[in-house]
């Protein structure tokens, strides 16, 4: 049996990076093929090549045995390849239906006798009534009605006619219309006795025909929302993917958005589905549902490529696994022939211990005390509801939760970047509710922000500028508003050495550093001040394993020095490895706060999906 997809020797280079190096694989019909690899191993690049978003530098792809050249997504769609991207490709302000049909919309001709009669009738009536006020006799009134209605009806019919003609090929439409125009032009030019105008009329006629064709093609095809909704409902029933076609994307939860993405591919009749890290934004329970959906899809003859860096998922349902590292295929196996440890080793290239060595915490007095904080997001939706928590000296409080459950806003409120609409919080017994970021920083609070490039760094500035972002105004760096460059450079030089930022040059622009080194710059800045409380949001997102270990070690060091640490992360492993206590957030609320050593992964997963602690105990 020929494999449905066969990729050979795919190589893709980006400036300075070899993203895919001689990658080959096959996908058989009805199979779930998993791609395993760390962030940056080249999985997404490979898939984007298959989907035509990138073109490969070398190598060839065969689909159903035929060699193909995929130039863009439309080619891929044509070949029956559909992709659910890691970051959903959905327009937030469009409806579900609009998102699904975009690109292959069902259309209708915007003509109905009803609209035709109604609009011309109304205009005729209005003209009649208007004429009654001002004009003298019944004949004039009727004429006005006739004129009004006639104009509407006439233009409607003309449009209909032209639209119909334009539904022929351009090769028919343009010559016909040009010919009509030219004849009319020649006749009128001759009748006016200006034969010199004839070339002009000819040019204008051709111009009009050429320009009106695409215009009419656009005008004569209206979006058929009814058909779209009907087809989507059919598909939903067929595959058990329930969605409301009229809902706006921004109003529905991520789990449903993912269904919309899958429906998008099914609507295009794809039979090869690429799912790029589909579980990253889902709770463990939503993940289960997704797996059921995938199973249904496979049962109906679809083939699935599934990308992940989570071992557990692979073990539970993949048919075959391809492991990528640094852009190369380092192994191919099946879950039955392999173990989690083995796969992990293949993926990372050495033995990994996901455990961080740490002593039990010695909890002391409270540093951060949060009481009933609520806040809104940028769209004025309440996303943080009545959150209370406390962090003590020398402990790590982990905040777990699926992305987008209010963690971002919580951190922003605590660091003064967002106003709280209710509640208050104290740091070191001082009320800091809605205080300025500077006051909070000066109290000894460090903040490793979630979005390091957007919030934490000034990318086009040198490292030394970034190291001063929140201390630039203080002596010894500034004397009466004058920056002291000697001190600044010496300080920056020292930090760059101490925190092992590479390359070790404080004059370099931060944007030229790698992600891990950018994060080191932030850590260097935040950890080198005398701090009492450290708020770290997603401190290791998107970093390589080496950097993750480094950051984890530094965090625990800080804790052991007695700093209070509030760690927000969506990586359950990170939370479990570092925290002393864990607070779980769901839909803007803290559903439970538990001791880290008295809770299992499964329990945390259920909490993250919104179960309360009580139901957990009962179960």
């Amino acid at each position, binding site marked *: 049996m020929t494999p449905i997809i066969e990729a050979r020797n795919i190589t893709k280079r980006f400036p300075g990076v070899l993203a895919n190096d001689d990658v080959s694989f096959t996908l058989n019909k009805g199979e779930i093929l998993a791609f395993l690899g760390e962030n940056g191993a080249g999985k997404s690049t490979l898939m984007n090549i298959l989907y035509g978003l990138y073109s490969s530098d070398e190598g060839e792809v065969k689909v159903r045995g035929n060699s193909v050249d995929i130039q863009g997504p439309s080619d891929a769609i044509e070949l029956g390849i559909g992709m659910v991207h890691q970051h959903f490709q959905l327009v937030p302000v469009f409806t579900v239906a609009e998102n699904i049909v975009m690109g292959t919309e069902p259309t209708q001709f915007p003509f109905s006798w009803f609209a035709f009669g109604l609009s011309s009738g109304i205009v005729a009536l209005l003209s009649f009534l208007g004429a009654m*006020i001002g004009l003298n006799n019944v004949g004039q009134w009727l004429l006005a009605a006739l004129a009004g209605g006639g104009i509407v009806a006439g233009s409607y019919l003309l449009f209909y006619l032209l639209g119909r003609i334009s539904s022929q090929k351009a090769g028919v439409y343009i010559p016909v219309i040009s010919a009509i125009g030219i004849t009319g032009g020649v006749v009128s030019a001759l009748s006016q006795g200006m034969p010199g105008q004839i070339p002009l009329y000819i040019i204008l006629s051709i111009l009009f025909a050429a320009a009106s064709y695409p215009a009419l093609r656009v*005008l004569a095809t209206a979006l058929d929302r009814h058909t779209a909704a009907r087809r989507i409902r059919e598909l939903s029933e067929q595959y058990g993917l329930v969605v409301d076609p009229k809902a706006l994307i921004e109003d529905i939860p991520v789990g449903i958005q993912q269904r919309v993405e899958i429906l998008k591919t099914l609507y295009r009749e794809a039979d090869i589905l690429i799912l790029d890290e589909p579980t990253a934004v889902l709770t463990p329970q939503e993940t289960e549902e997704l797996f059921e959906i995938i199973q249904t899809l496979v049962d109906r003859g679809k083939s699935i490529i599934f990308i992940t860096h989570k071992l557990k998922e692979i073990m539970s349902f993949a048919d075959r696994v391809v492991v990528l590292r640094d852009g190369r295929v380092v192994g191919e196996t099946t879950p039955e022939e392999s173990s989690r440890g083995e796969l992990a080793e293949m993926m990372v290239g050495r033995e990994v211990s996901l455990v961080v060595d740490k002593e039990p915490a010695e909890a002391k007095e409270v540093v951060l005390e949060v009481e009933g904080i609520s806040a809104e997001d940028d769209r004025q939706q309440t996303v943080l509801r009545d959150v209370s928590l406390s962090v003590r000296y020398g402990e790590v409080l982990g905040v777990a939760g699926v992305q987008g459950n209010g963690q971002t806003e919580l951190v922003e409120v605590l660091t003064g970047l967002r106003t709280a609409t209710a509640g208050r919080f104290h740091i070191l017994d001082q009320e800091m509710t809605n205080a300025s970021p500077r006051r909070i920083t000066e109290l000894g609070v460090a903040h490793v922000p979630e979005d390091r490039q957007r919030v934490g760094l000034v990318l086009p500035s040198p490292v030394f500028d970034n190291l001063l972002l929140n201390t630039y105004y203080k002596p010894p760096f500034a004397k009466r508003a004058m920056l002291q460059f000697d001190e600044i450079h010496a300080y920056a030089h020292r930090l760059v050495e101490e925190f092992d930022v590479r390359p070790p040059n404080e004059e370099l622009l931060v944007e030229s550093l790698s992600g891990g080194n950018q994060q080191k710059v932030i850590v260097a800045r935040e950890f080198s001040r005398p701090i009492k409380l450290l708020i770290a949001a997603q401190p290791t997102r998107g970093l390589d394993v080496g950097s993750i270990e480094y950051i984890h070690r530094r965090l625990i060091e800080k804790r052991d020095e007695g700093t209070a640490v509030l760690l927000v992360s969506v990586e359950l492993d990170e939370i479990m490895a570092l925290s002393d206590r864990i607070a779980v957030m769901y839909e803007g609320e803290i559903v439970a706060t538990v001791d880290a050593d008295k809770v299992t992964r499964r329990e945390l997963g259920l909490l993250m999906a919104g179960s309360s602690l009580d139901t957990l105990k009962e179960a």
Partner: protein
Amino acid sequence: MTAQAQSIDIPKATELSRKDLVIAVLFLILGGLILVLGGFGTQPGERAIFTDQILGDLFSLASRSTLYTIGSMSILIGGLRLIRALDSLKSVLTWGGIFLMVFGFLVWITSGTKLNITGMVQSMLTAATPLTLGALAGILCERAGIINIAIEGMMLSGAFAAVAFAGIFNNLWLGLLCASLVGGLMAAVHAVLSIKYKVDQIISGTVINILAAGATRFLNLRLLEPSGLSAPGQLGAIRIPLLADIPIIGPILFENSPTVFIMLILVVVINYVVFFTPWGLRMRACGEHPRAADTVGVHVNLMRYVSVTLGGLIAGIGGAYFSLDVVGAFEDNMTRGQGFVALAAMIFGNWSPVGGFLAALLFGFADAIQVKMQILRPILPFLNVYIPHEFLQTAPYILTIIVVAGVVGRSRPPAEEGKPYEKQ
């Protein structure tokens, strides 16, 4: 229509939002001012008479009592807003109040004389024409994700091209066509700079504006004036027989210059295209989430090129309005910043063609009333001076600032506007 349904403020039960406070205070102050105008700016027994050129006097109002009524109603609306009563009717009350106050102002300036209200509406529509065309141009660009502050430049070059080519071909209609084409050409330059070369779109727009101002003046002095082509004459009004005889709506809707008709047709057509066709859906997707559009096979940059150029074609017609409709000749810098006001109309209208048209009507009204005031010259109470008409000329600009500051209405621009799309 889906794109506009979002920007609804969720009212908070606990406190008065700052925006509400501003609006309430504005209503209180303006209501008070109208009371003062009624008490001291009018004579007792004076009436304001509104007329129509065919029907004669339409209706007349006792100015003082009308102004008292309107003033107290405005204060009432402001007060209601302040104590958060009738919150569900908030926007209806606000717009009703604004309408009343504008009408009150109209009554005050007419007090003791007559005002041709049909003529007023007509000149309002005429003044709104270039603004609407400019706003449509902006909508096409910005819905596709390209910021367009070059409407002014596109209109100016259109105005020039209209005169130049009307003179060369000795045909005003061809002038109009070429105005449109040259506007499209300028837009294409903007598109190439901002899409291909990824120049910051505001800088690229500024370039178009400077280039248009310089090039039109230069070419006018060097080519048009020496060859005597700079005054080809005006496009006459088109009168639809019979329908134009209908009182009130006839002269307003059916007897207009061609650009006004073009404008009215384009508002309907563009609104339909943007919101009800597949092309419009894809085009809006390019402005909201280009990557999503790309992954379903829409050619984002091609879409943007087409959209921006179409916008330029429309802006060019807006330019021809100035030279062929109003003046019949080219004058330096004759668009006088209307392109920027059009931009504001676009923002005010929430990036929707019909909304932009309504906003343009509002600006057009400010313009029309300013012209009327130069004739009627009402005297301010206490100060005993005329209001200099230049003050009223600033009204559209001040209105624009108020609009972009978000004091009235709230708009939501396309999300990915201003960012070049890079495929990767």
